[in-house]
């Protein structure tokens, strides 16, 4: 069991409202990712759920029970920190055993649980080492092991992969996803990296300035972002925004085109521009195209794209996949991808 319900939760430090009134239902067993730029309140909210920060107003329910002012140890949650927060003076074994010892679990049971967790996380050979003797990825696994043995009702991850190098990050991402599948326990995962969010989440909550802009599955957010912020945040490289002159009867203030939805055409297209920097990734090519009066557009092309610096090219995009935003930056669903007109 691990459903968490936030009702009208707020947080303010002095006079600054870090979290504005916010509602969120986290379902039992789901993998939810809080994503947003730094300072958007996602980590603070996680810490409030953990009980490491007070909740200024509103209520937090865990498994239907009011938990707003329950101390962290009694909430039945486990947390994996950005810096791993391993106890440097204890062996891996004792690190993992620590929460069990605090809960006065019998030594024999502790031993068994440690063995099991160690096997699961490939840590068996390292149990008697100190955290300082481990690599970043191993430390990360110890932190996860320490969380697992408590059998918490939910796992909280606070940017756990931030300190790992890129290739290790991809591996750990897979491992954590795999772990979620096998444990089937609620996981709340905070990151500023939208790739992590897209690849791991069942549902994503996009944070910005202390509010949740949108909650949805990765594909919902990709296809039907509610506003320019979400549209720009989800997807890599970022969506291109093109301001347009308002026409009577059309609220469209700007258009949004994802780099992968551009097409390079030989005949006259929607836009014409000069190719700037070309980035060849092998499987694909990113072109930075300068278009007069609009600026630089990022275009994703095939891997064998032949365009070079200085070429004039024509661009077009599938009408159906172009997003339309109004003056406030809200999506105009009827005109955008997934809207009725495109259906």
């Amino acid at each position, binding site marked *: 069991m691990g459903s968490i319900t936030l009702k009208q939760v707020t947080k303010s*430090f002095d006079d600054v409202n870090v979290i504005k009134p916010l509602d969120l239902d986290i379902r039992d067993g789901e993998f939810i990712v809080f994503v947003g730029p730094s300072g958007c309140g996602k980590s603070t909210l996680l810490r409030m759920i953990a*009980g*490491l*920060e*007070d909740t200024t107003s509103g209520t937090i329910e865990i498994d239907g029970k009011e938990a707003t002012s329950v*101390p962290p140890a009694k909430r039945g949650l486990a947390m994996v920190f950005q810096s791993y927060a391993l106890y440097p003076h204890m062996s891996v074994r004792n690190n993992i055993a620590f929460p069990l010892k605090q809960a006065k679990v019998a030594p024999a049971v502790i031993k068994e649980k440690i063995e099991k967790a160690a096997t699961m996380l490939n840590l068996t050979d390292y149990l008697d080492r100190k955290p300082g003797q481990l690599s970043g990825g191993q430390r990360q696994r110890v932190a996860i092991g320490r969380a697992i043995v408590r059998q918490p009702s939910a796992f909280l991850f606070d940017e756990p992969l931030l300190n790992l190098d890129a290739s290790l990050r991809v591996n750990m991402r897979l491992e954590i996803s795999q772990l979620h599948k096998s444990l089937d326990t609620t996981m709340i995962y905070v990151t500023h990296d939208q790739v992590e969010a897209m690849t791991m989440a069942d549902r994503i909550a996009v944070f910005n300035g202390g509010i949740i802009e949108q909650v949805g599955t990765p594909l919902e957010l990709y296809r039907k972002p509610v506003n320019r912020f979400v549209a720009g945040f989800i997807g890599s490289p970022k969506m291109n925004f093109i301001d347009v002159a308002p026409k009577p009867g059309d609220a469209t203030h700007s258009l949004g085109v994802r780099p992968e939805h551009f097409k390079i055409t030989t005949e006259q297209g929607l836009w014409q521009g000069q190719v700037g920097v070309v980035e060849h990734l092998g499987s694909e090519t990113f072109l930075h195209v300068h278009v007069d009066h609009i600026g630089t557009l990022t275009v994703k092309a095939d891997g064998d794209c032949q365009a070079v610096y200085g070429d004039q090219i024509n661009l077009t995009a599938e009408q159906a996949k172009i997003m339309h935003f109004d003056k406030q930056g809200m999506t105009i669903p009827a005109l955008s991808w997934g809207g009725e007109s495109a259906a």
Partner: protein
Amino acid sequence: MATTQSRTLAKIMLFPSVSLLLAWMIVPLCMTLYFSFLDYNLLMPGDNEFIGFLNYEFFLTDPAFVESFFNTLLLVGGVLLITLCGGVGLAILLDEAIWGRNYVRMMVLAPFFVMPTVSALVWKNMFMNPVNGLFAHFAQWLGVTPVDFFAELPLLSIIVIVSWQWLPFAALILLTAIQSLDREQLEAADLDGAGPFSKFFYIVLPHLSRAVTAVILIETIFLLSVFAEILVTTSGGPGYASTNITYLIYTQSLLQFDVGGGSAGGIVAVIIANIVAIFLMRLIGKNLEN
């Protein structure tokens, strides 16, 4: 950033330190303040009547106060100057690749561990004594008349002794600071064509500012109340030539048993220290916190 519970806990945990220090500071200070308005002498039992600011008047108009005030400034300033300049020099020297650096560092550090009474006595008798001291022997060997240090240069002699005690402290802290200097900065300066002097003034010295601040702060705290070195060497003399404020108040209160006068002096010392403290706190407030 924490919860109400941990904040409450934090207050409880702070309580012993804060209350002890408060008691240590406020209670005796109030008593000193109170005594300073009384005609109170331990040798003359009486009704210790209230005499207003008379004690202050006596203390502040006493030529001994003026002299010891300037002595205090000279002592603190002189020792700071010597230890900082010497310390920077030593730190740069010890930072170089030399043979036996550990032993050199141990020798430089040693005077810091010598208690004030010992260093004062050793310097006074075995080095600065005009008849049997090493300096006197050396002067005779050169054919010069030996200097009677404590009669002729009492304050300077004390400054030398105290500087010897504090030089290791300054040197060691500055050395540690120099060692933390990013070598790439110096290499970049080399590439930019900086000579040794510009490197010192534009890179090393600014890098040392935090450490220098720390040295000034800590030394000042201790140097304002230099006492034992004066007690065992000159006893403040000749006349008041080597009396600092701490020593002056000591003689008034515990040698002349003038509690009222000594208390007035104590309050004056507190005020002076506060003025110094305000300057220093500004300095560290800026420099020490990150």
